[in-house]
């Protein structure tokens, strides 16, 4: 279970918003996080606290394939991204590096800046502690659940390779 404070974002947040290409010179999550949303929302890296949650609109993470984007969010301590929808590559990247994401349009709409949200992944349940609203989301399919519960694609692959 995760409990975190909500930061609200709009539609079509792209990977250049999350981390501009000029900072792709490091693979260190902490270092990347210093520049997270630097041009889109200056000061966000100072405002965000460990465990916070992002609630965004449609097509979150569109644009480049840079895995630095979910890594920068992870480095900042973001515990989950809830959105109306995710861009395809961002979705894969987040799963592969172990950043939880939830596609739930009602919850993404129903949550405001500063709300506190409680997320129960196993139950597929989101709870807005400020408003008292509850939202259901579809848990990951079995196939992806195995990757996520292994802690990401590399750990899953390593485990699988050992078993073969």
């Amino acid at each position, binding site marked *: 279970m995760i409990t975190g404070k909500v930061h609200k974002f709009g539609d*079509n947040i*792209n990977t*250049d*918003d999350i981390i*501009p*290409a*000029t900072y*792709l*010179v*490091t*693979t260190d999550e902490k270092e990347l996080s210093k520049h997270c949303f630097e*041009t*889109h929302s200056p000061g966000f890296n100072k405002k965000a606290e460990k465990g916070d949650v992002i609630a965004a609109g*449609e*097509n979150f993470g*569109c*644009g*480049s*394939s*840079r*895995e*630095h984007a*979910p*890594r920068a969010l992870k480095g900042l301590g973001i515990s989950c991204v809830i959105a109306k*929808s*995710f*861009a*395809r*590559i961002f*979705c*894969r*990247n987040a799963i*592969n*590096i172990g950043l939880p994401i939830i*596609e739930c349009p009602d919850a993404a709409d129903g949550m405001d800046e500063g709300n506190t949200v409680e997320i129960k992944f196993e139950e597929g349940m989101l709870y807005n502690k400020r408003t008292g609203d509850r939202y259901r989301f*579809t848990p*990951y*399919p079995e*196939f*992806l659940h195995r*990757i996520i519960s292994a802690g*990401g*694609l*590399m750990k899953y*692959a*390593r485990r699988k*390779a050992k078993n073969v």
Partner: protein
Amino acid sequence: MFRERKGKFGLGKTIVEKILSEHSGRDVHAGEFIVADIDLVFAQDGTAPLAIDAFNQLGKRKLFSPEHSAFFIDHASPPARRELANDHVKIRKFANEHLAALFDIGEGVCHQVMTEKFTCPGNVLIGADSHTVTGGAVGAFAVGMGSTDVAAGLAYGRNWFRVPETFKIRLSGAFEKGVFPKDLILHVIGMLGADGANYKCLEFAGESLKGMSVSDRMTVANMTVEAGAKCGIFPSDEQTLSFLKEHGREDKFRKLESDRDAEYEKEIEVDLSVLKPVVSLPHRVDKVFPVDGDELENIRIHQVFIGSCTNGRIEDLRVAASIVRGKKKSRGVRVIVIPASRLTFEQALDEGILKIFNDFGASINNPGCGPCCGVHQGVPGDGENVLSTSNRNFKGRMGNPEAFVYLCSPATAAVSAMTGKITDPRKIL
């Protein structure tokens, strides 16, 4: 996003369903999660360092197939900063140690080189770059992924996929003078929206394909990701064969098309003859307007970029050169021309095209990504407008969030470089 479709399917398959069935060893249809074999894997200098780290985490000593793995130094090439130079050192070392193909500075943009040298009809290709979709131009299932996914591909030659649903885009008619494949794909993106094809395959079909070269198709396939698509794909036909012949790879040809009874999620008709030259306005690729509309009246430009994996091919340079031949660029406009690959550079050199651009007053850079991704070779100043033949105009994309990037065809870019403002190419052609 994770919806898995189950139930009865017709026998017919789309091109992508055929390719993924072949690569997973069973009959697969849209909506299924599968594990499939991969034919080609690559990464570029922005994404390779992370892919190398992820690969090393696996504790594997060997690539699944060095001759099917490639590394490109194209995004910051040559590097403008010490950190970038050190990334390149890391990539060279890894590629050499693992005997993978390495395309160093001056060789060109990954998508162009992959298509010239490696990508074959019916292949499964994954690349750590969103514009990997370009490979769909020759009938390959080519998808962009992140570094970790690509590392898994490098190590095992396999990965998981969700078989995408397909939108069929049926093309009829022919382009009017001054209208080009770039205008077609910008039109389609404007129509679908930036996420209108999220997770989907965009398959192009119809009578107009007969007259569309692989170069034209690459421009179109390249930008399908700007509508969120997982891939863009063209059937493999006579045009594909002639492209492969041109590159000495005709033995790799195979015909590939969708079955008549294949299932499509959506079918869209586009009549090429009614399309106009269009421009995509900052800061969204799907903000597409006709070049002769009010939105684009009197927009002064400071920098023109002709190049990139979208429009840096010899065919694009020929169009632009035919417009600027014997002319001078507008004062106050910087013009940057970048051939997409070394081969393109050589062709442009042989055909006298580089001389035409040089006489025009353009600056010609080495093959690579150029200013498209904002790391080197032409970051615009605050408040400046850039007219570019590349594929993305997000805020800050070219390295300055205070600049404005407009996207267009090489013809529109060339004509506008002469006038100093965004100009309808039909006025000159």
